């Protein structure tokens, strides 16, 4: 091999190395979950306090996005365990609980909003990878006891129905609005936060989608926590159960006698 050829090969090698490095860097910038310069995500609060008068809240998500991309916004809790009673017919006539369905690796809350239906803008692989859409969640969860995939699908659909009924699961499209400001595109969407959502950490993730794949991601955490008298009572019921039980009984006895005395004084029935 001549020296000139060696130089050419070396420069080709270093060129492809540079390309690979660039790809890796690009890939990292997409998948570390960091907001890039083009996509940002801001929720109206990062902390929801459950106090005495709590009746749910609103979580709005806004930010800047590239006008050439579609958006998907997901709010979900970390994977957990759910145990539910299955209803079935006994003796061909009576409906009652016939078993227990255990679901692992499943979020207790799952909200999805997108500019268009997600299966129209994103590939199946990408949906599965980032758990976008009920189909992806269904593939991800582990369910017992189920005989086959058909039975898993049947019970997963029932599970979604149960969760949607409790306002803890929702998938909708076309509910993100856009405005233009200083040459940039702002997006905005509003989720009704149900009071049924338990205390814990929730993650808001905004995905920018182009050509059937995710090109950018931005994240924000929302923490739901009990506060004040709610926190004190819930803590006492768990950690000081005997005192809590006695206090509950004493309060009831006191109220019963108290009302009895008031009625005797006020009513003068005898």
């Amino acid at each position, binding site marked *: 091999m001549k020296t000139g050829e060696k130089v050419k090969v070396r420069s080709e090698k270093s060129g492809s190395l540079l390309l690979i490095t660039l790809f890796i860097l690009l890939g990292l910038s997409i998948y570390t979950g960091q907001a890039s310069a083009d996509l940002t995500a801001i929720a109206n609060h990062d902390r929801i306090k459950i106090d005495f008068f709590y009746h749910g809240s609103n979580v709005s998500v806004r930010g800047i996005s590239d006008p050439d991309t579609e958006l998907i916004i997901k709010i979900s809790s970390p994977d957990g365990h759910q145990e539910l009673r299955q209803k079935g017919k006994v003796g061909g006539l009576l409906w009652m609980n016939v078993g227990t369905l255990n679901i692992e690796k499943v979020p207790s809350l799952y909200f999805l909003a997108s500019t268009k239906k997600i299966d129209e803008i994103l590939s199946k692989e990408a949906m599965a990878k980032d758990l976008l859409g009920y189909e992806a969640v269904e593939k991800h969860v582990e369910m017992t006891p189920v005989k086959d995939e058909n039975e898993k699908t049947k019970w997963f659909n029932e599970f979604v129905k149960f969760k949607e009924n409790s306002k803890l699961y929702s998938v909708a499209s076309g509910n993100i609005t856009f405005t233009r400001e200083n040459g940039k595109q702002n997006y905005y969407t509003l989720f009704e936060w149900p009071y049924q959502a338990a205390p814990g950490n929730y993650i808001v993730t905004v995905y920018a989608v182009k050509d059937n794949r995710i090109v950018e991601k931005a994240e924000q955490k929302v923490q739901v926590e009990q506060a004040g008298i*709610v926190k004190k009572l*819930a803590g006492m*019921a768990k950690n000081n159960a005997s005192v809590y039980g006695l206090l509950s*009984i004493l*309060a009831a006895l006191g*109220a*019963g006698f108290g*009302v009895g005395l008031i009625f*005797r004084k006020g009513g003068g029935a005898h």
Partner: protein
Amino acid sequence: MYLYLPVALTSINVFIPVGLGLAVGLLSGLFGVGGGFLMTPLLIMFGIPSTVAAATDSNQIVAASTSGTYAHWKIGNVDFKMGLYLLLGGFAGGLAGVQGIKILKAMGNADFVIKITYVLMLGIVGTYMFIESLQSMKKKKVEDAKPAKESALAKLLKALPMQTRFEKSGVTHSILVPVIFGGFVGILAAVMGVGGGFLMVPVMVYILRMPMHVVVGTSLFQILFNCIEVTFLQAYTNHSVDFILAVLLLLGSTIGAQVGTVFGRKLKADQLKVILAGIVLLVTVKIVFDLTLSPSLMLGLGGGH
């Protein structure tokens, strides 16, 4: 106005539990029932998890039955002696019932047995009380099989040892009678997950032959102690008593129980029985519908019945 319930982990309009408390407290003062067979399903209907609904209901019954027992005691309607024997039997029966449920659960058909027991007991008790009280209201002298059977039962009860006089009720029985029948109600109450007032009242009326007004006061006295025990056990072992929900319920139920006692004095015994029988039958019909109509959701939260 909405309040957040720290143990039920849900938010509720305060007028719902206060209103439910008032209505069920009224029944409690009128008929001497705790009202668990009505309140627990109603609370579940308003989104309270079933375990929390049952446990918190016990807590509020402590208040309603204190208020009711106090009101009835003032007018001399509580037979403490009879109440204590019934309580003794009820306590033993409750323990046996809880063990029975454990065995049924292990066999895998607990829910079926619970539901069927519920429907049968409510249906039989409701129908019998309804027919019997209607007949005595019409003052007909009915000679069917039932009174004949009862007199045979009465003879058997008279033959038992340890006969004693219950002054307040004006009856004489063996102390075994309230203990055994209290135990029987205790077993059924534990199996069905209810206080058992709607079973105890007919036992006192038809088997112990106590006057209706003393039945109401004595039943409430007995329920008070049962519910104190259940509240403590539920709070201690299951952490399922919601204090805020209990306070909202008892705000209504303590007042309802007093109003019920006043109304009860104005109604005749047969009128009281026929109304209670009507309510029991309505609940039975509702349960039968729930069991036979297809549910909208095939999954539900665990716990409770």
